[in-house]
């Protein structure tokens, strides 16, 4: 009959329970890394291939030996190079634009050295490892080469589409972001393709040498 107030639940131990759970999740959490360098492997092709003749000046030949030293052979000279100088060397090589006539490169801003690459499309970076090369060094070299390509692609993307206020890497990130609306994606796709065709990543990896 009389209105009885319900007894209050004692919430004093709530904090303890929550702490217990919190500590459990803190201990079990591992923040997984899920980013890295995307690459594509060449398919195995058993058919006979014609040898393509490539001018020596268009090859930027890198060789990493078992002591993780880097040798560079390009434009008729061979030298030991430090990894920190590799990005600039690769940009200089790709951007050289030494071609004439049909091979002339309109958008290259390099020195037009006739002993270095003709244009973006002709320039090839080749990498050869030793089997005893450290993975860490290999990743650093890969990273620097991708960085060199990205640097040029950023520049050309901004030059071609200045009103987007994005560079190539940002545009690509936006393109692969699932939250970007599909209308914008379609627009970005064409532009990204255009730059990728202008500056293709011609990067070849030779089979590593055995070191005994």
């Amino acid at each position, binding site marked *: 009959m009389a209105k009885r107030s319900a007894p209050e639940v004692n919430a004093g131990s709530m904090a303890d329970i*929550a702490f217990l759970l919190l500590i459990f999740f803190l201990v079990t959490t591992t923040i997984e890394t899920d980013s890295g360098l995307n690459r594509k492997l060449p398919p*195995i092709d058993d058919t006979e291939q014609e040898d393509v003749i490539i001018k020596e000046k268009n090859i930027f030949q890198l060789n990493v030996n078992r002591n993780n030293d880097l040798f560079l052979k390009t434009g008729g000279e061979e030298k030991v190079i430090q990894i920190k100088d590799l990005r600039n060397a690769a940009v200089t090589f790709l951007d050289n634009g030494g071609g004439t006539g049909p091979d002339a490169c309109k958008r290259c801003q390099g020195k037009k050295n006739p002993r270095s690459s003709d244009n973006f499309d002709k320039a090839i970076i080749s990498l050869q490892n030793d089997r005893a090369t450290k993975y860490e060094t290999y990743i650093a070299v890969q990273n620097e080469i991708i960085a060199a390509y990205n640097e040029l692609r950023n520049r050309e993307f901004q030059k071609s589409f200045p009103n987007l206020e994005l560079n190539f890497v940002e545009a690509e990130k936006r393109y*692969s972001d699932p939250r970007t609306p599909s209308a914008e994606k379609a627009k970005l796709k064409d532009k990204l393709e255009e730059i990728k065709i202008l500056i293709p990543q011609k990067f070849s990896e030779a089979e590593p040498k055995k070191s005994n």
Partner: protein
Amino acid sequence: MSKFKKKKSGDMPAVNTASLPDIVFMLLFFFMVATVMRQNTLMIDNNLPFADQVEKLDKKDLVMYIYAGKPSSNYKSTYGTEARIQLNDKFAEVNEIPAFIAAERASKREELIPFLTTALKVDSDANMGLITDIKQELRKVNALKINYTTKKGNALQGLKK
């Protein structure tokens, strides 16, 4: 005299802890949401190298993981100190990779198979010989999209020179 004493020992108001559970719960929810339960127990050292030109791997369900590195201290006595491959929860040889890829492909819907990416989680100290063998096996089974999983950071920082 006693007057002063009384004032000094005036009881401090207790700190109100009523909102403590709320704060703790907030933290708890953050960690619950951010937690990813590991699928594989790592039996190898896996200290990933650094790189700064990274792209994000989205769609976790379309990624196959291949781990490689030196066996961790518990397994050193049985498996030695040479870098090895780990697939799922056990050590594997290079020639087991095609079977692993086939099993992963069989577990996915058919239309998703072309989008499958292989993530190589390799310890920085591993030798390139092992990686090359892995890549060769992947080429044989036509799993060409790969991703060298790295930590985000300056690529040159770990190198000695």
